[in-house]
């Protein structure tokens, strides 16, 4: 489903080049539940940004469902994100003017769906992530864990093939982190979409079935827990 071929990302910092990613190549199957792990600055977020089409590699290629992202212009990348990719952020990034229901509905409206047709599925998803009764609440009225559940519902509502979650538990306490991880694990099985986490949260690593470790922009290990073997 997703393939990265010799991907490099170089940032210009002042007069020097900073290599965020160096020759990263990997393949990810549909329905994967994996985590990119590594210390801060190892390139995890950069990798998710490149996969999500939010940034472009300096070299190499990202291929999603057979299409190279390099061939897509800004509007086509936006369409790809709108239809195929869900995002979950560390600080949930909910739209402050909207309530829970509207935040979850928003990606569908972006896809030109009629609210009347999708209302039930939005409500079901809100219920599924455990926020029933909080539909009218604004993000400022919710706890961090509740906000992250809204973000998960928002990411899944359009039934994407890929969900990119950047440090989704970094801002949560242990209990909320565990709850979020269990929820994402269940939803991964339910929806069949691939979940790609970036994290350095040890608890999260226990839930995934593939761990890709990054250091200094390089993949230093790729352990597939389900298969019990090292891929690279």
């Amino acid at each position, binding site marked *: 489903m997703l393939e990265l071929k010799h991907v490099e990302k170089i940032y210009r910092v002042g007069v020097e080049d900073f290599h965020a990613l160096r020759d990263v190549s990997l393949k990810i199957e549909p329905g994967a539940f994996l985590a990119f792990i590594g210390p801060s600055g190892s390139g995890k977020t950069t990798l998710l940004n490149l996969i999500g089409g939010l940034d472009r590699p300096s070299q190499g290629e990202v291929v999603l469902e057979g299409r190279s992202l390099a061939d897509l212009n800004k509007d086509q990348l936006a369409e790809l994100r709108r239809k195929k990719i869900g995002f979950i952020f560390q600080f949930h990034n909910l739209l402050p003017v909207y309530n829970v229901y509207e935040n979850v509905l*928003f*990606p569908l409206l972006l*896809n030109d769906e009629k609210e009347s047709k999708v209302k039930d599925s939005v409500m079901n998803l809100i219920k599924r992530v455990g926020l029933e009764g909080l539909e009218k609440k604004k993000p400022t009225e919710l706890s961090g864990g509740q906000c992250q559940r809204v973000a998960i519902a928002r990411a899944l509502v359009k039934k994407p093939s890929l969900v990119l979650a950047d440090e989704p538990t970094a801002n949560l306490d242990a209990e909320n982190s565990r709850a979020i991880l269990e929820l994402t694990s269940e939803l991964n099985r339910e929806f069949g979409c691939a979940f790609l986490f970036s994290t350095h949260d040890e608890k999260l690593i226990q839930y995934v079935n593939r761990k890709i470790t990054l250091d200094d922009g390089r993949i230093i290990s790729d352990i597939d827990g389900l298969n019990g073997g090292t891929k690279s």
Partner: protein
Amino acid sequence: MIFQSAWKNFCRQGLRAILNILVAALTLVVAVFMVSLVNGFQDQSSKNLKKTDVAGGHYRLADFDILSPTEWEDFAFVTPPELKKISSDEKAEVLVQQGQIFPQNRFIPVQIRGIDLKQSLLELPLNSINSYKGDSIPAIIGTKMAKKSNLLKGDFVILKWRDKYGAVDAREIEIIETVRFVNPRLNDGVVWLGLKTLRDMTRRANESSWVTVKSDRGEIKGLSFLIPNVLMKDVIELAKHDRRNSMILWIILMLLCCISVFNSQMLNAFKRQKEAGTLLALGMTPGQLTRMFVLEGSFTAFGAVVLAFVIGVPFFAWFQTVGLDISHLKDSTIPVTENILLVFDPKQIVNCLVTATLMIVFASWLPARKISRIDPSRALVGKAF
């Protein structure tokens, strides 16, 4: 969806949005006020000129120029039958000649203006000349002229003139009335006589300097017809000049308003870069993002138009009951005497509103364009700018 988002974001701005709307609305009210005041000024001055001098236009010799008194004698003509036959409520024959008066041993050059006293086309308070029973030549002068020459009603003064054949003559005239003409050009420097009297004095039987008519009577051989706008060119120019000056002031106010909107939008763009990054990540295109931000700015413009109506309508209604006092201008050469009222021109108002709206939309488009070009990955961490 974009409209709904823009509206909610706009409402979220709270006091900033309200202040922007208020500034823009006041600017619009000031713009409409200034333009309508100049209209009122032009309307009153042209009305005064029309009812006392210009009416529907003048038939005169081609090169006659009221500002060249030494040539007046060369440009008198015998009133042609086509004009002669027009009834006195639709035409007024006028003869102007140079002259001098000698009040209290002083010498003052004057315009001697003879007008058909039966005419009712122009509103001139000259009826008392008709009812004069004395032995002198009855004359009327304006209040400003009376003040300048120290002449009062009932005074006698020597008037000197030259007839058609160059002979200089002089006689005593009696000031039977000093009148405040609404047209200041007639209030100063003019000695009003009956047309027949002036024609007899200058031996210019049936001659006129111009014939004022109610409406264009078509081409008349040897004469030119000057339409009111040509005859009131100086007043129209003055109004145009005033309009230009008020436009400059309006543009300055509008720019200040646009800077305020621009500033708010820039602040928005800076403060909301994470939100912009999120929207791009969710799949909003840069074009949609621009439209959303521009729409937010546009609400200021539409809000301003609505508020301008709310503030403007009662203000203008009140102003029309009092008008602008211009009594300090009564001695000027501008033909306005009464309080000036606003004259609204729907086309001008629409122009003002459309221009203001477009300027505000443009002011909100500039920052919106900037935010649509941000790198979403940097915007998500608040480092896009």
